[in-house]
């Protein structure tokens, strides 16, 4: 789990993925035939494998949701814009780090004592929030931060509960960690791994990576919503922790290719790997642009269920992560043995 710890804690807000890219690149040097970075910052790691087998693109995105400093006001507080989809309600009372120097800060909120009756029922909008880095004025603040600095959540990775993990950015460092493991394994299938950028602001990196790679087949490894919590009715829970990797059926950007889905289900059942379906049809992921690249690509998504994604803390279960990896390996082996979606 040390790889996942490092990946979870490293900052990499959409548009600023450089540090994540560096960590992954260093780990992949000896496992790749070719490594390159493209115009948007995607990291492409290629294992050419056997020329008789179909070219498989596997994508996981390096970017996480976060904030970007837009303005430093005269009191030294930082105004910000959100990067990617964040519910305003998770922001107040959060610890963050600002910029490449990772200056600690806090998103404050009015103390309870000073609130008017009924105020607690209103959501504070993010453009009324600010980050306080403890500076006493604008000049002092400008010595350590600037507008344009990216801000990430200051969440430590931790093991907790019953085989659970807590940390930020499991969406999608969990997918990145799985992809790293796949690249380390013995595969004959030509594996064109794309650690993509800017998924959270519009599935951007995947679009150009797919064009570049021209895959025959594609898999996307994600971290997905898991709402098996109180207050959510059964039919609103997309996935559940502990029930295995979640296979996507449909979201706003793609349908799982029927042949790819069949292949994943078969690999799971023949190897007794637990799996579930992602029941929500909301959201989108890199499979959207990849499946529509050039003349079309059969694509499917395998996700690790994570509670509280797009917030400072997410929670996942180790066994789901590990079973996801087993499923992917089994699927790749089936391809080597002749399975074609």
């Amino acid at each position, binding site marked *: 789990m040390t790889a996942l710890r490092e990946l979870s804690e490293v900052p990499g807000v959409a548009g600023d993925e450089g540090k994540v890219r560096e960590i992954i690149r260093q780990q992949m040097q000896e496992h790749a035939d070719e490594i390159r970075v493209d115009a*948007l910052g995607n990291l492409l790691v290629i294992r050419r494998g056997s020329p008789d087998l179909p070219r498989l693109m596997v994508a996981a995105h390096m970017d996480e949701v976060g904030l970007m400093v837009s303005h430093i006001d005269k009191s030294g507080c930082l105004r910000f814009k959100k990067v990617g989809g964040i519910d305003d309600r998770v922001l107040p009372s959060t610890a963050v780090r600002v910029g490449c120097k990772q200056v600690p800060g806090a998103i404050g909120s009015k103390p309870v004592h000073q609130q008017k009756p009924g105020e607690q029922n209103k959501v504070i909008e993010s453009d009324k929030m600010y980050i306080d880095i403890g500076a006493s004025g604008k000049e002092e603040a400008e010595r350590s931060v600037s507008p344009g600095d990216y801000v990430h959540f200051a969440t430590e990775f931790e093991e907790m509960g019953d085989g659970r993990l807590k940390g930020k950015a499991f969406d999608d460092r969990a997918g990145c960690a799985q992809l790293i493991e796949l690249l380390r394994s013995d595969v004959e299938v030509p594996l064109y791994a794309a650690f993509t*950028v*800017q998924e959270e602001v519009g599935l951007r990196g995947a679009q150009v990576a797919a064009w570049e790679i021209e895959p025959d087949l594609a898999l996307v490894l994600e971290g997905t919503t898991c709402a098996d919590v109180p207050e959510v009715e059964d039919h609103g829970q997309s996935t559940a922790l502990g029930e295995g990797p979640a296979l996507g059926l449909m979201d706003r950007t793609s349908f799982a290719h029927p042949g790819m889905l069949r292949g994943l289900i078969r690999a799971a059942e023949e190897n007794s790997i637990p799996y579930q379906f992602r029941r929500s049809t909301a959201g989108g992921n890199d499979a959207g642009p990849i499946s529509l690249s050039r003349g079309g690509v059969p694509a499917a998504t395998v996700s690790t269920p994570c509670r509280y994604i797009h917030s400072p803390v997410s929670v996942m279960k180790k066994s789901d992560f590990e079973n996801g990896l087993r499923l992917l390996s089994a699927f790749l082996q089936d391809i080597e043995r002749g399975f074609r979606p």
Partner: protein
Amino acid sequence: MSELLETVTGRDFLREICTAAGVSGAEDSLGDLVEKRFAPFIDDARRDVMGNVIMRRRGSGADPPILMLAAHMDEIGLVVTEVDKRGFLRFAPIGGVDPRNLLAGEVEVLGEENLPGVIGVKPPHLISPDERTRAIKMEDMYIDVGLDEESARAKVQVGDPVAFRRETFALAGDRLAGKAMDDRAGVAALYAAAQKLASLRLEADVYFVATVQEEVGLRGAVTSTYDIMPDAGIAVDVTMASAPGIPSSIDAEIGKGPALTQGANIHPRMHRRLREISERERIPHQQEIEPGHSGTDAWSMQVTQSGVPTAVVSIPLRYMHTTVEMLSESDITNSGVLMAYFAASIDRGFLEGFYDSST
């Protein structure tokens, strides 16, 4: 390039193109005008399938890098949806039109012949007090071209585009106001860049592209970028400037120079070079923070084929999407000069290591 062709001043060019009609999807004759004015500063020009005007100034390099500079020439407007039984025209928007800016506006219906018209409104005498507080919906508005039904039907067809009418006019200082500053100001900035580049040494091939249909979905930039496949691209557009009633989160100011955007749509190295050149050449500039969609052609350009490093240069503008859009002429000139110096600085060396430069 022919230096013998007539050149016009930047201000005259801006007035000329802003006053002309060029609603999204009907940019043809405007494109002709743009091509004619740029001719003294470029080596070749063509129109693509969608009508984008693609004009090239060749560089001296043996294997020249390709830089694309884009500004959209289309403006928001209206389209006729019905000719009613008294000769009034019903209409729908093309692009983001706020109905509250339409009443009593002057327009031009672009059919077989161009017909002047007005967007009619009830006189105050006939409006009840509570009617006054309700905004009128676009579907209840109409254009009066002063014709009866039979003549109107003879001259106007469903689908005819309608342009707003406004002559560009000068205000105090170097401020100008008019329609279609979004984004003819950008086209004028390209013109200023082309003029400036005439006196600079250039290794790269520079494509000046007046794109179409930006206002209805950044469409012209999709196909023109695919066609040119530049090594780098800059979109020059307008950005909202501060004014009374505008939220304080919008802090660009007119007259303080082009805004240089930072965010996912902008390659950090492009932004850094633009900032360095601004500082070196003492070009006033401002900062703009946009973490996601920049709202410009750069959004389409960036994800073309295997990707294009892009940047956005913005001219601050008040009252966007009205017929009194206001800016400072110096912001246009400074944007143009900045892009010219940027273009002149591009060589093969700059492109190497473009990738993998997240800082």
